[in-house]
């Protein structure tokens, strides 16, 4: 014995050692295995675990001060938490009983309210809790209004029994982390714990699928998991669960309600959803009836439940049971409903709404922990012994003012388990999250769970914000038949046909194309303008001042950052210090700026998270980090700005390539392409309008034409094609009319018409967005450059050319709008 020699627990109960310092039976194998392996192997296994978790992208988002989520890695200890088979049987019974009770409470509170009427539970404990949803009043009578899935946190008390700490009933998290922990442990346990046999998790996942399938009436395509979206702290889990449970993952914006039912918007139209696995909290689910500032829900969701057209797991209203105020009455409730005593003990809890209890709490405040019964808005916990006399007085004043809202609990020391860190094994307090699922009018409990540990040795509080976790092992042979198709395996969810692509994803793909094109074009033009400025004196030609002004104006026009370089009140400053305006177009969050375009690009990128490969994620994270550093810096020299933009441009091109490799055609890659090309066309036309429609003398004209081609990265292509010096008519021919050059307007128009035919709503007759492009084609065909460029000397502008370009621009915009209406709005379906 070496490793465990230094393991000394000060807790009143240790999981491994009994009071006589003997190793408990169920831990013997594990402790032996660890001693045999030695610290070096343990460290190696820890590294292996870390690598697997990172490789699988297991994260837990924590919001930092800038409101930007920082992905935090999930930590898993190589030493499991072990429970013997017999003890687990008792615990399972206790958890089943508790789930059954919670369901009975749930149904009663939203129907007859016998618990209140017969004085089993004080009305104040329910009505004073913000989780009680008056909106689902009387829904308890509905057959499908049940608690389908719940989590109960338990920990071992000083008496050696497992105690209930708290109940999670509205949208419990942790299941996916539990599964991932187990899969990761499987990798190392063959080496580390070769002779330990444990219960498996797969039957619970199968039961979960069966439950959803039953609710959905047999067709899983009518069920969906509702996530708050990629910004949510447990988004990883939502994506993971939707894959395991084989259901669609959707956001509020993917859905709408009509006919008193819920519908999923997809590229091919609306599809009815009859079962929702909900990961959005109660109050955020329906902006019509619940919180109207929420964008995470769907207006009319409650009405769909009211009309009996929607099953929800768990139904809205279940937050009321996340209520420690119920604890003191749980035994009475168990007697009332089941004529049984509670199997699992709870921490002694006093509800302050009763005079006797309040007096007791005030008298013993130094030894108690005071909590609010309602945790829907804040989690307020006061440790009596840590409060100063004046703080205690304040707390007592609060208790007297609003006694109904508070409970006091005994401070209990929970058991310790061994935890590996920095080359040694130490005791830590731990809490176990268990999961129960409704099955045939009863509940089934997962043979495992998520163990979370306190962050430091002295810290008794176990945080729910990620941190270090353990796998829970129930010893014993698994008697359940293992169907080879039922093994747990994680495969990222992928759309199988373009018809099924959700509208939200489709819209994001379209805009990803548009924003990416816009970022690239804007960066290139800005770079060109900067190079123009820095090379101003290089060629000893004074005329370039005029071409510089024209290109600067083109930048203002293209980005629509008006008044920009056209600000007549500020012309002098703009002439002398053009970098001030350019820097602002790059860094300021103003309409049309590169910074804002980049924000929008980030947003669409996040919304497409599950489509993208890990590589493109890593790249984008790097781009974002360096970009924000750059734009938050002040007073960069012109050269530095140009260097940064050069780098940024290369990043964007790399990202573009990764998008091309990540997104499959079936997932709607074509939408991205369409968006990209429409934006390309619009920006090219805008530049052509400001740079190619002005009549210029030869040297200035040459400068501007070169600028036009360079900003499209097309100078070499032009020279290869024309082998002639720069001339306005050939540049126009190249960029507007050429049928072979992929960046020309004509090429884009032809290509768009081809791609439109591949979409789900392509029709035999022409759609409105096709019509716009066909009109553009006709306009392009009618263009005769010789006539268009014939202009009277005094005009200075090619008016006819400008007019046609404006018409083309309008037609591409119309195409974009009509396209959005056809595929993304659904209002008339």
């Amino acid at each position, binding site marked *: 014995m070496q490793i465990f020699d230094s393991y000394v627990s000060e807790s009143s109960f240790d999981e491994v050692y009994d009071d006589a310092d003997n190793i408990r039976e169920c831990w013997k194998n594990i402790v032996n295995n660890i001693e045999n392996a030695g610290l070096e192997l343990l460290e190696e296994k820890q590294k292996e675990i870390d690598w697997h978790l990172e490789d699988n992208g297991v994260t837990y988002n924590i919001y930092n001060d800038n409101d930007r989520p920082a992905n935090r890695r999930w930590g898993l200890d190589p030493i499991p938490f072990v429970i013997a088979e017999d003890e687990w049987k008792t615990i399972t019974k206790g958890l089943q009983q508790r789930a059954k009770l919670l369901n009975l409470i749930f149904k009663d509170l939203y129907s007859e309210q016998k618990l209140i009427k017969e004085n089993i539970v004080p*009305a104040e404990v329910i009505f004073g809790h913000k989780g009680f949803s*008056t909106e689902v009043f009387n829904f308890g009578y509905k057959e499908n209004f049940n608690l389908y899935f719940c989590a109960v946190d338990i920990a071992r008390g000083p008496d050696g029994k497992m105690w209930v700490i708290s109940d999670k009933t509205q949208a419990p998290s942790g299941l996916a982390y539990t599964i991932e922990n187990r899969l990761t442990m499987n990798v190392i346990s063959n080496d580390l714990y070769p002779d330990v046999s444990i219960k498996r998790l797969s039957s619970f996942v199968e039961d979960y699928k069966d439950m959803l399938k039953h609710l959905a009436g047999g067709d899983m395509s009518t069920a969906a998991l509702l996530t708050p979206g990629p910004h949510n702290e447990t988004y990883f889990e939502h994506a993971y669960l939707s894959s395991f449970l084989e259901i669609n993952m959707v956001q509020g914006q993917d859905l709408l309600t009509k006919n008193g039912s819920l519908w999923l918007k997809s590229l091919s139209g609306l599809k009815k959803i009859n079962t929702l696995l909900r990961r959005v909290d109660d109050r955020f689910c329906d*902006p*019509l009836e619940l919180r109207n500032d929420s964008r995470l829900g769907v207006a009319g969701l409650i009405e769909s439940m009211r009309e009996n057209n929607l099953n929800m797991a768990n139904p809205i209203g279940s937050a009321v049971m996340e209520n420690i105020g119920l604890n003191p009455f749980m035994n009475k409730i168990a007697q009332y409903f089941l004529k049984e005593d509670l199997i699992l003990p709870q921490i002694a809890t006093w509800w302050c709404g009763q*005079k006797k209890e309040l007096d007791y709490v005030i008298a013993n405040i130094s030894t108690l922990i005071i909590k609010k019964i309602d945790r829907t808005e804040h989690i307020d916990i006061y440790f009596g012994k840590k409060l100063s006399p004046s703080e205690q007085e304040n707390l007592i004043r609060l208790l007297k003012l609003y006694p109904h809202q508070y409970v006091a609990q005994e401070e209990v020391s929970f058991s310790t388990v061994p935890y590996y860190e920095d080359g040694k094994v130490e005791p830590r307090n731990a809490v176990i999250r268990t999961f129960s699922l409704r099955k045939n009018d009863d509940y089934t409990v997962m043979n495992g769970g998520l163990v979370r540990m306190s962050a430091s040795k002295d810290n008794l509080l176990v945080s729910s914000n990620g941190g270090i976790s353990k796998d829970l092992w129930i010893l014993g042979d698994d008697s359940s038949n293992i169907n080879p198709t039922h093994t747990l395996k994680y495969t990222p969810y992928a759309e199988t046909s373009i018809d099924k692509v959700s509208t939200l994803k489709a819209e994001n793909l379209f805009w990803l194309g548009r924003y990416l094109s816009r970022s690239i074009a804007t960066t290139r033009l800005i770079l060109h303008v900067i190079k123009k400025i820095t090379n101003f004196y290089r060629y000893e030609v004074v005329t370039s001042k005029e071409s510089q002004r024209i290109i600067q104006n083109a930048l203002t026009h293209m980005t629509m950052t008006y008044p920009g370089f056209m600000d007549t009140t500020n012309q002098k400053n703009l002439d002398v210090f053009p970098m001030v305006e350019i820097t602002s177009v790059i860094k300021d969050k103003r309409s049309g700026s590169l910074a804002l375009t980049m924000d929008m690009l980030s947003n669409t990128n996040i919304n497409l998270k599950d489509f993208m490969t890990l590589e493109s994620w890593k790249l984008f994270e790097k781009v974002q980090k360096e970009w924000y550093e750059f734009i938050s810096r002040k007073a960069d020299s012109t050269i530095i700005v140009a260097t940064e933009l050069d780098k940024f441009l290369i990043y964007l091109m790399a990202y573009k390539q990764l998008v091309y490799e990540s997104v499959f055609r079936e997932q709607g890659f074509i939408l991205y392409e369409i968006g990209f090309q429409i934006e390309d066309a619009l920006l090219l036309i805008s530049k052509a309008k400001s740079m190619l429609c002005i009549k210029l003398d030869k040297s200035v004209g040459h400068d501007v034409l070169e600028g036009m081609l360079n900003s499209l990265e097309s100078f070499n292509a032009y020279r290869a094609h024309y082998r002639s010096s720069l001339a306005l008519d050939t540049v126009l021919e190249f960029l507007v009319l050429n049928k072979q050059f992929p960046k020309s307007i004509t090429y884009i128009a032809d290509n768009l018409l081809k791609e439109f035919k591949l979409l789900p709503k392509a029709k035999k007759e022409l759609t409105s967005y096709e019509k716009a492009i066909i009109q553009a084609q006709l306009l392009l065909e009618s263009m005769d450059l010789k006539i268009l460029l014939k202009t009277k000397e005094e005009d200075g502008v090619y008016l006819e050319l400008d007019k046609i370009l404006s018409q083309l621009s309008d037609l591409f915009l119309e195409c974009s709008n009509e396209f959005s209406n056809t595929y993304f*709005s659904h209002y008339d379906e």
Partner: protein
Amino acid sequence: MIYNVYHKTAFEYQSNVTFSHNLARLKPKVTSYQKLLAFTMEVSPTPFESFEYLDMFGNTNTHMLIREPHQSLSVIGKSTVEVLPDIIDEHVNSIKTNSTTYGDALKRLSKFNMNDLYAKQYLFESELIPYGSLKIKEYALMSFQENRDVFEAANEFMTRIFNDFEFLSGFSDITTPVEQIFEAKKGVCQDFAQFAISALRTIGLPTKYMSGYIETLPAEGQKKLFGTDASHAWFAVYIPNAGWMEFDPTNNIIPREQHILLGSGRDYNDISPLKGVVFSSGNSNLSVMVDVRKEELISEKTIAQEESQIKIITTQEQNQSQSQ
């Protein structure tokens, strides 16, 4: 007493709305002292579908989905309501007889009593009405001494609000915090109601928000113009052993024959006459027009005529505040 009530709520949107879910609560509540003789609701544009249900507070909700492109939505509730002052008188007398002292009321509320159970949902903070500060509590306790009869105390409390607070429209809206109203001592009917509710809940008495209308009379010799009324708000306090008692602090009266109840709840959010969720860019404006008059004074025909004359006034009136 029979009243005809006309209550029009309209949203004007900056840009086209193609899809909107709306919830209307315009059907007056039926109580022991108020009968609903007739009710119709006119919605434009015509809803694609609508559902009606009773909520937990006994108010009728109408859920409407509108699916055609529109830039304005108007919902008009027309009700004929009979108010029964004799029954109200009986009720008030019974309350006076059965009312208890403030001390006894608190004692009884701290224990289980079948009759008090459903009043207890009006004992807590709600979205718009938080508990009051110590100052508000002290202000309320000046009327509520332990041995004081709750009815007497509440009546005096109403009168004090009437005297201490100045009626001033434009100072506040529905979201103005109670503390700010108390500090400034001015506001409109909904502010006085919310202040009273906050104060009485803070001292432990269940109190609910009453929403409805009050009949106003034109100056002597003048004809009453159509649409010049407004929504009204007052409060009701629960007196254990006696029941719910209504008070109107804006007018310093106990509602009798001039008050018409639309609905009641924990606060305005439970009974706002019309709310909606739209998919659109840009802002929306809300305008409200209310007309209340005794039945014999008006016929349907004159409503239509006068409505067209009054159009200019209503488009200028674009905030949600109830200004009675």
